[in-house]
């Protein structure tokens, strides 16, 4: 029991941040009727036929605003990838993130938070898949990726 308490205490910022994300996703669904999936929101902006959807731009600008606030109040919260990740690796990673979230129609927020909350089987499978793929990739990178 004490171990559990220590575990939760140590992870309080993560738990609190997660809860804020959950509240934000709830508000967007309740008020706007929209799923807070970042790849979907940004993906919609790339589609020229999507008109009168200024809410997508507004939400994205909101994210940027949060970043600016963080930059002013606590610049260290905006970190960079580990230094062993070259620019080429990051470009390649970006391409995979775009292709992957485009094909599976969701990312950590859309599938991981909103989809799971709707008990969607697709989201459960997607979340398990990207979690395992992420863990295998990051863990393998330490051992084999130094040459990149």
């Amino acid at each position, binding site marked *: 029991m004490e171990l559990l308490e220590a575990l939760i205490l140590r992870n309080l*910022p*993560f738990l609190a*941040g*997660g*809860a*804020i*994300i*959950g*509240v*934000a996703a709830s508000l*967007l669904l*309740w008020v*706007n*009727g929209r*799923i*807070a999936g970042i790849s979907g929101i*940004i*993906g919609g902006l790339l*589609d020229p036929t999507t008109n009168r959807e*200024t*809410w*997508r731009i507004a*939400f994205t*600008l909101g*994210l*940027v605003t*949060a*970043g600016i*606030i*963080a*930059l002013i109040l*606590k610049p260290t919260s905006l*970190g*960079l990838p580990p230094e062993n*990740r070259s*620019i080429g690796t*990051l*470009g*390649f990673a*970006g*391409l*995979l*993130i*775009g292709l*992957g979230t485009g*094909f*599976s129609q969701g*990312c950590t927020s859309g599938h991981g*938070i909103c989809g*799971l*909350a*709707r008990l969607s089987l697709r989201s459960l*499978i*997607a979340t398990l*898949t*990207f*979690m395992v*793929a992420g863990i295998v*990739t990051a863990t393998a990178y*330490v051992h084999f990726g130094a040459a990149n």
Partner: protein
Amino acid sequence: MNSVFAYLVGVLFGWGLVVAQMTDPQKIIAFLEIGPHWSENLIFVMGGALTVTLMTFRLILRQSRPILDQSFHLPEPKRVGGRLVLGALLFGVGWGLSGYCPGPLVIGLVSLKPPPWICFSFFIVGLWIARKLSIPRNTQAE
């Protein structure tokens, strides 16, 4: 009105990511990389978010419509297929390589440093390609 609210929610969502330290790719890597420095942080972020959404989404979706729109815009139920699994797999690899997922990546842009900008540019290219390839097939199915 719709967009004003979406903006405010975007700020809150982004602030949640900042508080959860998900805007630091090294924190993500610390969870994804199994080793002596492993951190359980992401389990608690997801746990915190899901504790809220598992309760609220059920209540919200019981309403006939959202407050500021005629109907809820939910993804249409689609089958679990190769495209879903392949996509999640590619995303996971990109996530593990960079420590970025789309939300924190957008927020990271404000640092004006090259890593997030390079990653974001290629993210947009990939997303555009995937949507280009996906749309004809979807319309065919309908």
